């Protein structure tokens, strides 16, 4: 294996940029680090249509949230009755009784959108939400479904980039001191944070909302600020000779700039995660004052602060361990503590964005890899259900207080306005000013679409 040279192309057209990229030439680090202004001037980083949103905050609940127990209430008319279905483990026909759902739903706000008792805070902002009850996906396995939700592709054979990296790749950075695509929390699959064929430069930068936000940002133990400053001064001097000799090489310029950006990150990233300038009442909105909501609250508040600093795509994964904490096969009641951890912070975020006038330009998405079945596996929990589930969106030009689409009487399949996850992705892209049909890259000479299967953006929820 050899490394490819970094070419300094005259990046004349988007097309040729993509073509060169497709040939596997990593011109983009150079582009990213040295050519931001040129790219913008030559129209590289422009949108296909007017953007409604500047940033996306994508909440991903790992494991599969039960839609019947959260945003898609069903009456218990069918409870205990047998339905014919397929065993998800062996694909054989089976007959299962519909599980009784003990949730109580309340109609909130002017819209009267029903929300279950686990999400009273989200209920209080329900007039901002467009709930889609008719999502569907192809895979019944966690990781495949999570990968589809992130990449828009159902095949696992190719390293497809995730939505955040497409947006980061297409729109570039607003703030040169921070990354464009940030992930917090552990995703179900590493592909959810991957740059895929765009490579490491478009992958999500993992941020932590506690202490140091980025890896390698902190000086190693035993190294003092003074010592490192002395070293950095000397580093510049000792690099001088080599940098001068090779000043004609773009890679060397890029390398020097990468150290400058690293230094700026060391200054600006800890500032982003330092909540000292937030008032107590704002911290309380996110539940940072309470133990149970503190970890997720810190992540959601950091998300708002990153939005304010121009980060394009912030993904927050909740419960990403093993198959995902929301994977309640044994008892749906296992959702309760998870809902408690996230309800107040999510609602606090929406209220806070709104009071700052940021909600109009910030698209908030809440999703999971799939929903859960109307029946159990001889437990009081529910199995995986890719045929029908709910997601919701808020802000960023989304029509609030509406419910779109429906599943059948028992909540198994999306029957009214079914949407494959690709439609959700196309909607997010559209709000960011991007037309999924115009987004294509050539990899080894073959064109690759951002989304493999799609009926277009979900116009019914757009304001």
């Amino acid at each position, binding site marked *: 294996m*050899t*490394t*490819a*040279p*970094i070419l300094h192309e005259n990046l004349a057209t988007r097309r040729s940029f993509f073509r060169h990229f497709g*040939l*596997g*030439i*990593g011109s*983009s*680090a*150079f582009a990213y*680090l040295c050519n931001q202004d040129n790219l913008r001037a030559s129209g590289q980083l422009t949108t296909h249509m007017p953007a409604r949103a500047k940033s996306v905050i994508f909440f991903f609940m790992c494991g599969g949230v039960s839609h019947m127990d959260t945003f898609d209430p069903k009456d218990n008319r069918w409870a205990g009755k047998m339905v014919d279905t397929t065993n998800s483990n062996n694909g054989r026909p089976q007959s299962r009784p519909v599980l009784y759902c003990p949730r109580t739903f309340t109609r909130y706000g002017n819209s009267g959108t029903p929300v279950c008792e686990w999400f009273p805070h989200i209920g209080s902002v329900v007039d901002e939400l467009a709930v889609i009850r008719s999502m569907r996906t192809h895979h019944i396995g*966690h*990781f495949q479904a999570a*990968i589809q939700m992130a990449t828009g592709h159902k095949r*696992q*054979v*190719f*390293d497809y980039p995730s939505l955040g990296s497409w947006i980061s790749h297409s729109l570039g950075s607003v703030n040169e001191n921070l990354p464009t695509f940030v992930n917090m929390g552990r995703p*179900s*699959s*590493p*592909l959810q944070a991957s740059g895929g*064929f765009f*490579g*490491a*430069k478009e*992958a999500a*930068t993992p941020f932590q909302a506690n202490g140091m936000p980025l*890896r*390698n*940002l902190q000086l*190693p133990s035993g*190294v003092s600020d003074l*010592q490192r400053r002395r*070293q950095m001064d*000397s580093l510049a*001097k*000792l690099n001088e*000779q*080599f*940098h001068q000799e*090779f000043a*004609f*090489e773009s*890679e*060397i310029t*890029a*390398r*020097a700039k*990468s*150290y400058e950006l*690293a230094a700026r990150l060391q200054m600006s990233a800890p500032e982003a995660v330092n909540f000292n300038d937030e008032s107590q009442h704002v911290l309380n909105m996110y539940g940072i004052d309470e133990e149970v909501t503190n970890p997720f609250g810190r992540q959601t508040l950091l998300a708002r602060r990153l939005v304010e600093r121009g980060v394009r795509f912030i993904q927050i994964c909740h419960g990403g*361990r*093993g*198959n995902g904490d929301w994977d309640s096969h044994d008892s749906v009641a296992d959702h309760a503590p998870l809902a408690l951890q996230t309800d107040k912070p999510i609602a606090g975020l929406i209220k806070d964005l709104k009071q700052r006038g940021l909600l109009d330009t910030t698209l908030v998405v809440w999703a999971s890899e799939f929903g859960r079945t109307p029946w159990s596996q001889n437990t009081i929990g529910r199995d995986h259900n890719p045929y029908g589930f709910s997601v919701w969106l808020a802000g960023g030009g989304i029509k609030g207080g509406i419910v779109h689409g429906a599943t059948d009487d028992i909540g198994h399949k999306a029957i009214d306005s079914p949407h494959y996850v690709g439609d959700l992705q196309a909607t997010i892209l559209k709000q960011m000013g991007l037309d999924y049909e115009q987004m294509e890259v050539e990899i*080894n*000479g*073959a064109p690759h679409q951002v989304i493999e299967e799609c009926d277009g953006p979900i116009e019914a929820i757009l304001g």
Partner: protein
Amino acid sequence: MTTPSDFGVNGAMTSHPELLDWLASELIEQGYSMKAIHRLIVTSATYRRASSGNPQLVAANSVIDPENTLLWKFRLNRLEAEIIHDAVLFAAGNLDLTIGGKSFRAAQIMVRRNNSAPTIGNYDNRTNRRGIYMGRGFSGSLEMMPELLQVFNAEDGQTTCAVRQCTITAPQALYMLNNDLTEKAAARMGERLHKLSAGDLQQAVNLGYRIALSRFPSSKEREHALSFLAAKPARLGEFCWLLINLTEFIFVK
């Protein structure tokens, strides 16, 4: 050839078709010996060109052939992930050169493993082995790529990779600046220089440059290094950190 995995209609044209043909026939002639063809290439006048030279000539050539398509200079190469790892440990005098055997897991992956179920494979516990033995790969549910390999563009093997990307990014700089690998190696290398030079700092500086960059320092560099050390042998570790973070350390010229 910019598309080594695609010689078809969608691939790029090679810059020197006759040369490529000749190399192909030489490879066959030599009984498909990779060693023979490598020897032929690396001993050629073209391969042995300098990567820089007379600034005026370089400037003129850069205008005529900015991409170096005609191979008028040696291409400046950033080291690959594994080689950076090896170079850092080698400078510290701590690289285990054993050939063959099991892979090892990077420290970061071992930490990850504690809170996730799967145990994959059977690993060596010597973490100072060469970078090519650093476990990597892809799993749908578990991050298997060590940070070093990720930031320096190693592929996870999920798809075929004819040519690695070679980016230059801030996370790479942060890695070299603050990661434990470089910090520990620098400290170790400092002790090594101290021992080998028997306290003579001028000799330590010379030796440091020879170990890290395979050359002696220029008088200006030596002077600066000595003023950095300020007659304190305790600063040799800090000085070695500087050497490892030099641009020249991760580029082959």
